[in-house]
């Protein structure tokens, strides 16, 4: 028992150090976002604001596009995207994890191949726009690239294969349960940890994505999710700054903008919901991942 205590203590120390290493830069992020822009330019970034200011947040929340609508779109997108993604990925992964499936090898290869080769931006765009007409619709945020990921499918497949006991399922077959029922009633509940993990990753993917909105929503800017909105803001600032290195005509557009602190504030704004949703995450996802942890 004594040994276990040592492990616990060492474990907490190590994890604590890691946590601090991760959090320190994030505190700088938050501190800088609350610092006056000019002070930031003159004195550099710091954890504690040398001169407190909410200008950056004011700028973001007063900008022409509604940040709350974008939050809403992002949240809907994450929920819809994650649900659809799991509904597609789980059955596929389960199917290709079945031992002895005739087309197992080819199907795994079919999935794996998509990880390495893709048509590139322009052909993908042409396909989605000319064939499926998703430009300037919500589907444009949902469909391209993010819905399924070969690596996740293979991870789930591996999990079904290695961590869900085959005997249990065979027993159920003997009892006369249908194959789909076995998947629903036996395999899925046992796969909770991997489902929670993948759910987290897919949700993160949707939450972080700005590219789909940027590329596919050329006219419907009101459909921008939060990250697209923030990224466009950020790119504009960066573009203006680069142009302005030689002090040309973009100066007017820049002079009113808290350029430095605003970027920091944008990162915080992007992270905020995650912190707000923390209790939910802990309850449903983190718990799912660590279900049955604490070994030995």
């Amino acid at each position, binding site marked *: 028992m004594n040994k276990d205590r040592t492990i616990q203590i060492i474990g907490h120390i190590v994890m604590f150090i890691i946590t601090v290493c991760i959090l320190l830069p994030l505190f700088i992020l938050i501190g800088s976002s609350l610092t006056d*822009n*000019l002070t930031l*330019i*003159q004195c550099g970034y710091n954890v504690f604001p040398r001169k407190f200011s909410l200008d950056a947040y004011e700028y973001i929340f007063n900008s*022409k596009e509604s940040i709350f609508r974008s939050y809403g779109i992002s949240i809907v997108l994450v929920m819809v995207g994650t649900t659809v993604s799991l509904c597609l990925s789980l059955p596929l992964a389960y199917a290709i994890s079945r031992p002895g499936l005739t087309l197992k090898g080819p199907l795994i290869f079919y999935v794996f191949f998509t990880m390495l080769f893709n048509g590139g*931006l*322009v052909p993908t*765009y*042409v396909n989605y*726009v*000319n064939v499926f007409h998703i*430009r300037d619709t919500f589907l444009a945020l949902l469909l391209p690239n993010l819905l399924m990921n070969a690596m996740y499918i293979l991870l789930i497949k591996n999990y079904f294969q290695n961590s869900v006991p085959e005997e249990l399922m065979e027993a159920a077959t003997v009892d006369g349960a249908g194959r789909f029922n076995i998947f629903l009633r036996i395999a899925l509940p046992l796969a909770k940890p991997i489902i929670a993990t993948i759910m987290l990753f897919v949700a993160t993917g949707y939450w972080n994505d700005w590219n789909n909105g*940027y*590329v596919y929503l*050329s006219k419907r*800017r009101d459909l921008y999710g939060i990250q697209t909105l923030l990224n*466009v803001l950020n*790119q*504009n600032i*960066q*573009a*203006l*700054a*680069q*142009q*302005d*290195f*030689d*002090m*040309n*005509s*973009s*100066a*007017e*557009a*820049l*002079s009113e903008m808290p*350029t*430095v602190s605003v970027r920091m504030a944008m990162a915080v704004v992007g992270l905020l919901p995650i912190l707000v949703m923390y209790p939910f995450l802990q309850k449903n996802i983190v718990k799912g991942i660590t279900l049955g942890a604490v070994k030995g």
Partner: protein
Amino acid sequence: MKKRLLCVVLAMTMLVSLAGCGAKKEESTSTTESSVDSEETKVAEEGALSHAEAAIQARKESGEMPTISMAFFSFTGPTEGAERVNALMSAHLEETLGIKLEVMNYELGNYAQQIQLGFASEDAPDLMSTSLIGLSNCIGNGYFYDLEADGLLENYGAGIIETVGMDAIETCRVDGTLYAIPNMKEMANGLGGVFIRKERLDAIGYDYETAIKDSQKKAKAEGRFILDDTVFTDYEGMTEVLALFKAAYPDKGIISPSTAAEDHMVPVDLLGGDPFGILDYETGELKVENLFTNEKWLEYLRWVRQLNLDGYISADSLTNETAASTRIDAFEIVCGMSNSKPGQAASTGGGPSVLFQMEDYYSASDSINDMPWGISSKTEDPVAAMQVLNALFTDAELSRLLCWGEEGVEYNLTEDGRLELVDAPAYDMNVEWEMPNQMIAGVLSVQSANLWEQYEQMNEAAVKSAASGFLFDNSGVQNEYIALTNVWQEYKMQLMLGFVDPDEVTPELVKKLEKAGLDKYMEEKQRQLDEWAAANGK
């Protein structure tokens, strides 16, 4: 290219004659005479209407209004008032031409990509600005329509020819085909400028009024052109002024050096925007030279290097991504460098400034055709597209809407007819210089009423590149371009900000560039230049 484009701010008259274009011009107008749309010819004959009027009448009679889309970039994409102003423009065109207008405005970082995707997916604009993409690229990518097909320009773009002038238009002809129309803008820049805010000069007690007056007097005596609020100086004189600041603020970074020095600070012609092979204005010869061993270039770099060694340049400059004007506003640094044009000293660097200028005024080879407008190769109605383009060049009301917005909302007219912008206008593009003709859109109240005359004077006074109108197409040497760009980027910022000794680094840089294909690239430039010279009788 991006940086160049921003130097361009306002329009001007295109009266500067370009020798050698005349012969070609006659050819092009005569060949188009015979081929015109038969139906419209009939109408034209019956009512003695011009082709353009006939087309408008036919549209109005049929009751079908085509929609013409125009694409351009602005720094931050459409602003709040864009929808309203776009609707006004469309309504205006519906009335005058029987055509609906759709505006496709993308932000700076997205413009080239959206145009590319638009063309790939059959949703290309009908009219577009070549800014950020470049005329050569647009032609190479197959974006553009032949403007003289079926007498298009002649029959429906008479106003364009009159406004822009055939000489300027000819600079957009490549391999015999006319692809685009230059927009109305200035055709020269003052090089080697340092802008210092007047209040900062006041603070250290520098008498700039006298200095400006002396410079004006001297320039007048020499018959030299000079802009308002300008002091002519040289590296030494500049250092003296900066030294006053260094003495007053020993802990501050004093100056933010140019990061586009090859374009803004040194009198060389970049022949198409990249620094790999240049013309020296002074020699006046059509001989492509190596920028990196050019004595003027090295002299400039040595000056910056000395400034850095003496502590005038902040140590964080290399990684500083904050705009110079913002840093000047925050008083983190005192001043910055740029090229110049009329009216610029009034507002650059966040307030009224004095321009210390170390070089003369120069007009580069692509000063005319660096961001012309073209009609898309995918347009379904080239006639309507040309008529809209024509209106953009000639219709003052349309141009004013496009550049500045709605009267009474975005601006009010002053007594002398200038435009007084309201605070934080809802329609706020900041890209009037990109538009076909911002000259007819008026002058702002903060600008001097004779702004256009100043442009004209500067254009005339400027030293003109021997290759004026030449357009370099690098599609045959893109592999070299990529390699050269990567080598140059490795050294660029350190050299331009004075963190390395130019005399020490140059041999190494040149050796690497040569390995990356500098000679081949310059040869190609020379070859195209010779061809161009032969074709244009130079």
